[in-house]
């Protein structure tokens, strides 16, 4: 980490416990500008905890976070979003019985003052969300439709579209293709590549090493709360990464 330029994001010596379980132990993690990092590891390795600390859901017991060289502290997801860190979760992120455009703008609703009342600007939010989805080639019947009428792939597309719409610098994807069909997964990976091409840095968490190997520049492996490997894609094959995850050891590469 001796770049002339500080990395976009640095998390140093992060530790976090939940009761007696130590989820993370002295993890140091960096993300450079326009980089896609695959964060992999077995169940319970601490991947989700690490990104939840970054997205403001949890606060670390120890360790520091630096964004563009400046120390930051997120006490809520809103703080992280305001700093340009957007997260797409596997299972949460959209409210089912709410329309697409209301979900799109949830937490960042647009208002228009009528008289003295700041009322929701429904038309503007509908138009903007429609435009954002259209521009990414996401086809939906109407943005006023409830999320519950959409397929898993459509929902995840909307999550990804939303996270890039608000101009985030860092996009965290937490198992975004977990419950999707092959075709739907491919569509999500295209959206990820699209975001990367527009200059967004991405942290991609997944179980599917082959999938992340395709889009990532670098791969970080966690094992029982510790970082055990940090490899550039060109220095590794998916098979080697899987071996590291399976055995919890890095010997083969040394």
């Amino acid at each position: 980490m001796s770049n002339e330029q500080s990395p976009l994001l640095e998390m140093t010596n992060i530790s976090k416990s939940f009761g007696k379980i130590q989820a993370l132990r002295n993890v140091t993690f960096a993300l450079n500008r326009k980089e896609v990092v695959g964060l992999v590891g077995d169940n319970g390795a601490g991947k989700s905890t690490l990104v939840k600390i970054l997205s403001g859901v949890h606060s670390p017991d120890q360790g520091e976070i630096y964004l563009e060289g400046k120390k930051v502290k997120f006490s809520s997801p809103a703080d992280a979003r305001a700093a340009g860190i957007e997260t797409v979760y596997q299972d949460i992120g959209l409210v089912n019985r709410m329309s697409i455009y209301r979900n799109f703008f949830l937490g960042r609703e647009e208002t228009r003052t009528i008289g003295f009342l700041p009322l929701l600007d429904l038309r503007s939010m509908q138009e903007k969300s429609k435009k954002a989805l259209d521009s990414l080639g996401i086809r939906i019947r109407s943005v006023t439709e409830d999320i519950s009428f959409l397929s898993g792939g459509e929902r995840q597309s909307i999550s990804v579209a939303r996270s890039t719409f608000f101009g985030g610098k860092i996009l965290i994807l937490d198992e975004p293709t977990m419950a999707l069909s092959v075709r739907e997964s491919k569509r999500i990976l295209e959206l990820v590549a699209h975001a990367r091409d527009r200059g967004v840095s991405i942290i991609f968490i997944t179980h599917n090493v082959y999938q992340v190997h395709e889009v990532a520049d670098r791969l970080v492996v966690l094992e029982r709360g510790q970082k055990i490997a940090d490899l550039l894609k060109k220095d590794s094959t998916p098979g080697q990464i899987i071996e590291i995850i399976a055995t919890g050891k890095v010997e083969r590469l040394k």
Partner: protein
Amino acid sequence: MRNKALPLSALRKLPEFGALVGFLTFFVIFSAFGKSFFTLSNLSAILTLSAELGILSVAVTLLMVSGEFDLSVSSVYAICALLFIDLGSAGIPSLFVFVLVLAVAAFIGLANGVLTTVVGVPSFIATLGMMMAVRGIIYIFTGGAAFAYKGDLVIPALLSLRFGETLRLSETDPLAYLRPSHVWFLLFIIVFTVLLFRTRYGNHVIATGGHPETARAMGVKTGRVKTINFMICGVMAGMSGIIIAGRFLMVSPTMGQGLELEAIAAVVIGGTSLRGGHGTIAGTLFGVLLVSMVRGGLLMIGAPPYWYSGIVGLILLFATVINLKMR
């Protein structure tokens, strides 16, 4: 009946559908069997009952959409009526008493909110405890006796008394049968509809009840939303209590018992989800009108008053089944 081409299929998708059908059904029944159902004084009486239950129920709707219950509204309603009568009778200007009493109501709501969102007591238990505790205070305070109001009539005239009395209108004037509470109810329906569907706060309320983790991840302060809703519930329960105190100009310690469930029934009949995340104020309006019409209408057709709770129970079950199965 399952013909998709009928506008009925679009209509019955509305959350208010069950309540609307029930309302029309009972309206027809009472019109057919009750000879005096269509009189001005009777319709006004039903409106009065609707307003007193409804002002509280619109707030309960908001709270239930955010995913919580408030069983303490009945006791808050009673203690606010009691405090209003007691302090007003002591010679304090009723306008001042009104503000003071609503502040007490807001404080009880705040306590419910803190117990639920900060301490983590399920709202069902927290507000059940609050309901019993406040009712206990009422009994201790009154010794079980009823009290009459001896204060000024500013607030009763602004909230409860018939326009016929306050404006000295002739009994042939239809306006004479209306009460300010009817107007307040209408106003609150509009205000709460706008609040729920046309403001940022309303969007946060729906998201909080619809999927709390998602709402939090998107930056919604769900605990704060719920606490504010508990406070709104308290204030509106207090408002209803003062309205009824202003109408009877007296208060009894058993006042409002069972009202908390009646409000929840009206809200659920109106299509609001028990699990939160979904509901409309218009649905609650129909639910409240239905429940109040049954109460007034049963008296009109000469049925024993005990029938009321049984029939409301059946309507509740029926409306819930309609809402579950017809959509």
